[in-house]
């Protein structure tokens, strides 16, 4: 079943005294239910633009976006978003941050606390449930942000370089945790990164993008077996994918 459909979408940004910047040109994309898709490309190639246009934060100049068959032009709870800078509500505790969406939508109290409990457990923040974000490390903050987005049980989770600000060890632990959550929840994920290893390690499909104008130049299907463990990066197949992508990104 097709979850996300991007049909001939272009995005232009007005520029000061110059022709508009074509951040994304005539892009087509189909993502199946449960797929983990990475958008990979150098900085400025339009990854965030593509993600935000699906998220409804950026308006498409041409084309159409459909999620679960409904066309979208505004942000909505069917598309959970996770940003690089966490964007937690500092005046709410961890639990209140996670419960924010369901409460807003007036879900029954029992269901709200059930969902929050489950997610707090999944992201391993039981001891921090009643703390304010200020005391959390970067990795913990991002776990809260992921839990908060998942609380609305979105059709697709949109993540924009979510681990970009984390140190290497935390980052690799977060990647494992994300795969673990994904295998339990089977949510569809679109994950933006500029890190080849991260993309190959996480994804079912890696869409390699190129700049000027922003577009998808290659669609890799990653056939590495799951569940993936950290040493999959040493395998021959992994190296082959990486070489191929490196070559694409260099040219």
């Amino acid at each position: 079943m097709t979850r996300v459909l991007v049909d001939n979408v272009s995005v232009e940004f007005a520029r000061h005294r110059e022709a508009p910047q074509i951040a994304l040109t005539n892009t087509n994309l189909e993502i199946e239910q449960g797929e983990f898709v990475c958008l990979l490309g150098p900085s400025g190639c339009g990854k965030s633009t593509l993600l935000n246009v699906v998220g409804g934060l950026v308006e498409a100049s041409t084309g159409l976006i459909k999620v679960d068959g409904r066309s979208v032009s505004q942000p909505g709870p069917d598309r959970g978003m996770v940003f690089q800078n966490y964007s937690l509500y500092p005046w709410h505790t961890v639990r209140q941050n996670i419960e924010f969406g369901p409460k807003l939508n007036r879900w029954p109290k029992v269901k709200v606390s059930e969902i929050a409990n489950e997610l707090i457990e999944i992201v391993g923040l039981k001891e921090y449930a009643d703390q304010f974000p200020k005391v959390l490390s970067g990795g913990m903050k991002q776990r809260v942000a992921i839990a908060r987005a998942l609380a609305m049980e979105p059709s697709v989770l949109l993540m924009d370089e979510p681990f970009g600000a984390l140190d290497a060890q935390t980052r690799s632990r977060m990647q494992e945790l994300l795969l673990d959550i994904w295998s339990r929840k089977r949510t569809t994920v679109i994950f933006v990164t500029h890190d080849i290893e991260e993309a190959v390690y996480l994804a079912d499909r890696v869409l390699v993008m190129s700049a000027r104008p922003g577009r998808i130049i290659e669609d890799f299907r990653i056939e590495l077996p799951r569940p993936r463990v950290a040493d999959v990066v040493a395998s021959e197949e992994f190296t082959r994918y990486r070489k191929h992508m490196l070559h694409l990104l260099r040219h």
Partner: protein
Amino acid sequence: MNSELKTAGVSQRRPRFLIKVQTYLRPRANLPASERMTISVVGVLGFFLLWLLVTEAGWIQPFFLPSPIAVASRLANMVVSGGYLEDVWASSYRVFGGFFVAAVVAVPIGILIGNFPFFRSLLEPLLSTARYLPATAFVPLMIIWLGINESQKISIVFMGTFFPLALFIASISEGVSSDLMNSAYSLGASSRQVFFKVLLPACVPAIVDALRITAGIAWTYVIVAELVGADKGMGIAILQSQRFLLTDQVIAGIVAVGILGVLTDLAFRYAHRKFFPYMY
């Protein structure tokens, strides 16, 4: 050999206070909290000592500048037997009234300007022009409109604080991160919910700080407002003392306004810690 001696000498024999001075002159130098405290105390004490010295030594006549001791005892006298607390109360009431109304109006208007392009286009040209109008020049106009009474004095405090406050709050609320609001939209929040559950709580701490800073302006304007047609108030008390050439009483009145300003500031700081514990 000569140069060796010299270099050694430089690092060893350089006086300690020179090293200190160097530290004090380095931008963003790290000073321990205790040292910063000591410097503050030295500054304040130094000021009063200097004041005490020039007055008690007779270098300046008491008529121009009475000694701090004379001022303090005069202030105590005014409070105990001069009914000065009634003046304090009258002024505090006006400051509180004018500033309260200004805040109640400025907070929503500031947030509207900061986050809604429609209201920005509608209101900003007027407000940023009005900011340049001197509130003190409105004293005569307010007398014509309202007469000489409480509401005229309160409205001067309002005029003086409302415009800077509204623009201050506009810029604060404009600074709330878009990601914070976008994440709420993507959790299914309506415009109304984003306004009340994200935008407002996100800028309230900074708004309270803005109120604290602007409260000082309110104390300035209440004194001006009282210079015309007030029978009670800290401003008129200063003016009357001047008529009778009671310099110590003039200075005592100024000091009293300063003390109340500091108390207002402390109250705001306390409220900030109390209401926004997640920031500390």
